[in-house]
């Protein structure tokens, strides 16, 4: 009965809009199966977590009230009074962290499998921009509860921008909505977090997914060189999609576990006239940058330490974004490709700086 109605609706639509291309796509889309197939799931999980952010974010919006005198109070109201408010907030906070984590894992897996090479240069570039936007989501969202830690994290984070010559000061003013971090900053960050970033993010996400759909999954060198009959594929529908779904369910369970047993702290309300609390630390995904800046002396050559640090990070980020367009010749006798070596050094640097940051 239901099946009958379903196929009737399908043929009604088909008659008018021609579903043939869609049907072909579903039938023929396939995914290479090999030792490293597991990495194909990282992007999907990142996408899933973004949807979780979207849903929980919209739910939080129903009670959240930006403003120096209302933001902290409204978040406290959400976690203490609203039914399951604590759950929604914990899921939003934890999912934000998992999202950043999986975005990083996804990026490095793509990097080490060389999937950014021609013809996928723009998939890499859009992906990198999505990661930067995700970090911006994290940074702007962090201020919204208007607590002590967030207040100082935002002071430091926006003050760093001011270090850049010429454009730094105006940019800092634009971000802060004034000289200092105040309620004006909170209003701006709120707008950035819930309107500007979601809009920009959606554009790049659509482009990213469109490129992937057009080109299909990247095949590693070894797999590509196999004789045709040795290459194994699995159909996207239903095999890969179901595996994707399974992984989403696993991550979802981890997320709920974290949200239930490790509630996100709200801390003390921000006070512009209280010292920065002892042991203040940024979110873990900014730790490697934070700690690097901490280690730099006040002056390097003729410029301030931060300026030096921020310039190096800025240049490194641009190079990293443009990696598909950079060719380095492999020297004879080298066992490892130079870019792979650079990637390993980058991961090593991030890992070591993060760990040291937490130890000291």
């Amino acid at each position, binding site marked *: 009965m239901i099946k009958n109605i379903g196929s009737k609706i399908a043929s009604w639509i088909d008659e008018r809009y021609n579903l043939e291309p869609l049907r072909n796509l579903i039938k023929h889309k396939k995914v290479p199966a090999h030792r490293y197939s597991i990495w194909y799931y990282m992007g999907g999980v990142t996408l899933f977590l973004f949807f979780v952010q979207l849903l929980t974010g919209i739910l939080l919006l129903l009670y959240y009230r930006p403003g120096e005198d209302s933001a902290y109070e409204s978040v406290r109201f959400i976690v203490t009074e609203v039914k399951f408010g604590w759950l929604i907030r914990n899921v939003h906070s934890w999912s934000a962290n998992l999202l950043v984590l999986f975005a990083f894992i996804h990026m490095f897996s793509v990097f080490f499998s060389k999937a950014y090479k021609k013809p996928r240069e723009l998939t890499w570039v859009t992906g990198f921009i999505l990661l930067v936007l995700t970090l911006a989501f994290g940074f702007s969202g962090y201020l919204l509860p208007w607590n002590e830690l967030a207040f100082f994290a935002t002071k430091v984070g926006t003050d760093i921008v001011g270090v850049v010559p010429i454009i730094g000061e105006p940019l800092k003013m634009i971000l802060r909505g004034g000289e200092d*971090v105040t309620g004006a900053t909170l209003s701006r960050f709120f707008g950035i977090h819930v309107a500007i970033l979601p809009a920009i993010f959606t554009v790049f996400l659509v482009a990213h997914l469109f490129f992937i759909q057009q080109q299909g999954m990247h095949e590693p060198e070894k797999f590509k060189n196999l004789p045709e009959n040795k290459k194994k594929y699995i159909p996207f529908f239903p095999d890969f999609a179901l595996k994707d779904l399974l992984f989403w369910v696993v991550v979802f369970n981890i997320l709920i576990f974290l949200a239930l047993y490790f509630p996100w702290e709200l801390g003390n309300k921000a006070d512009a006239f209280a*010292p920065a609390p002892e042991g203040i630390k940024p979110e873990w995904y900014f730790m490697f940058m934070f700690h690097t800046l901490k280690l730099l002396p006040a002056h390097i050559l003729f410029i301030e330490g*931060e300026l030096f640090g921020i310039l190096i990070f800025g240049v490194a980020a641009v190079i990293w974004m443009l990696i598909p367009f950079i060719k380095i010749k492999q020297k004879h006798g080298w066992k490892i490709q130079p870019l792979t070596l650079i990637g390993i050094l980058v991961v090593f640097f991030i890992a070591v700086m993060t760990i040291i940051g937490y130890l000291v």
Partner: protein
Amino acid sequence: MKIDRRKFLNSLLGIGGIGGIISVFYPIISYLIPPKTTEPKVSSIKAGLSAEFPTNSSKIIKFGRQPVILIKTEDNEYKALAATCTHLDCIVQYKNDTKQIWCACHNGIFDLNGRNISGPPPRPLEEYEVKIVKDEIVITKAG
């Protein structure tokens, strides 16, 4: 002749286009930069009674919109310094064990005269004058 006319029209369009773009973006960029709020000029404030301020302790005082850290040293001397760290804008605190001023954000340390003695801060903290007028602590901006 025809080409010239086309060229002419194209450059007219180009100039008009650029003008159009500027007339859209100029107001938007200007809008983004917050207007300067005129701060009420504060030149001195009272910070409570000297007798009520414990030795070897500190508190943060609102000097207009600026936080100022007021310290009563071990020898009952007063020091008032801008509490905003010269590194990246955090608010500093007095450590009564080491008798130094400490910034928790990146471990910056200043001495009691506000000089940056270790860590990333590039400049000393600005000093304020402290006077005791009839047992009341009065802080004034130096200079």
